[in-house]
């Protein structure tokens, strides 16, 4: 076994295999997809978003600092119509109290 064939078998071929496999691994990992996933403790920097079965259900209230209004179809006629009782600050008031729950993680 000449020195050349020894080098070829024990150095060049393993190196080539390592390079090919690592190149495939790098190509296969979808980094963009992974970075969009939420992980606790990592910053979450997406636009606020509001999911509804029917987007016209949202009134454009006096609160302009809420989620992106375009996403809420604020030009729907419902945003203007509808009897709304308002308090002194202009916020709509419900006749009764609301219930629900809170949690942290």
């Amino acid at each position: 076994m000449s020195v050349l064939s020894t080098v070829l078998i024990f150095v060049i071929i393993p190196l080539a295999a390592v390079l090919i496999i690592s190149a495939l691994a790098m190509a296969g990992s979808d980094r963009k997809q992974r970075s969009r996933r939420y992980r606790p403790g990592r910053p979450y920097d997406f636009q606020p978003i509001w999911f509804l079965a029917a987007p016209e259900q949202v009134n454009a209230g006096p609160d302009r600092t809420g989620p992106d209004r375009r996403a809420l179809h604020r030009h729907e006629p419902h945003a203007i119509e509808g009897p709304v009782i308002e308090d002194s600050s202009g916020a709509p008031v419900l006749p009764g109290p609301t219930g629900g729950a809170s949690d942290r993680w």
Partner: protein
Amino acid sequence: MTAGEIREHTSEQPLTALDAPGGETISAEPEQVTSDAGVAALNGPFTTRQLLRLDEALRMADEQTGLAFSVYLGDLEEPVRQHAEKLHKQLEGSELAVLIAVSPNQRVLEIVTGNEARKRISDRDAKLAALSMAAAFAGGDLAGGVLSGLDQLASHAGRS
């Protein structure tokens, strides 16, 4: 107009996204045929498949219970509970509405039920759903947590 005559489209709305020749195809640039809300959703934390499942879950929950479920995902101002209730008040027919507000940055979630919805979903039931949602969120599963929360709330509310 005779057959074969070529007419310019004068309306604002293009017939297809390919009306301007040489542009990107719809599959390459789905934003062309998606509404603003849709684009905002696509740029969010969910994959298309998760968005479809969420949409389906919201519609099923609404249909079965007669309540109006909605999910808000984003930062809430302090005090968090008051802000969630303010968002809930913006909903049309808010006494029948159930809002799930999730703030991943603050790691807090609020479930707000309206006056009527509260009779169907007791605060205890809401707390139970909140617990399972928080468990899923702590594991990094936003979509799964929202879906399981919706499922629990809808099944507690029962059929209308």
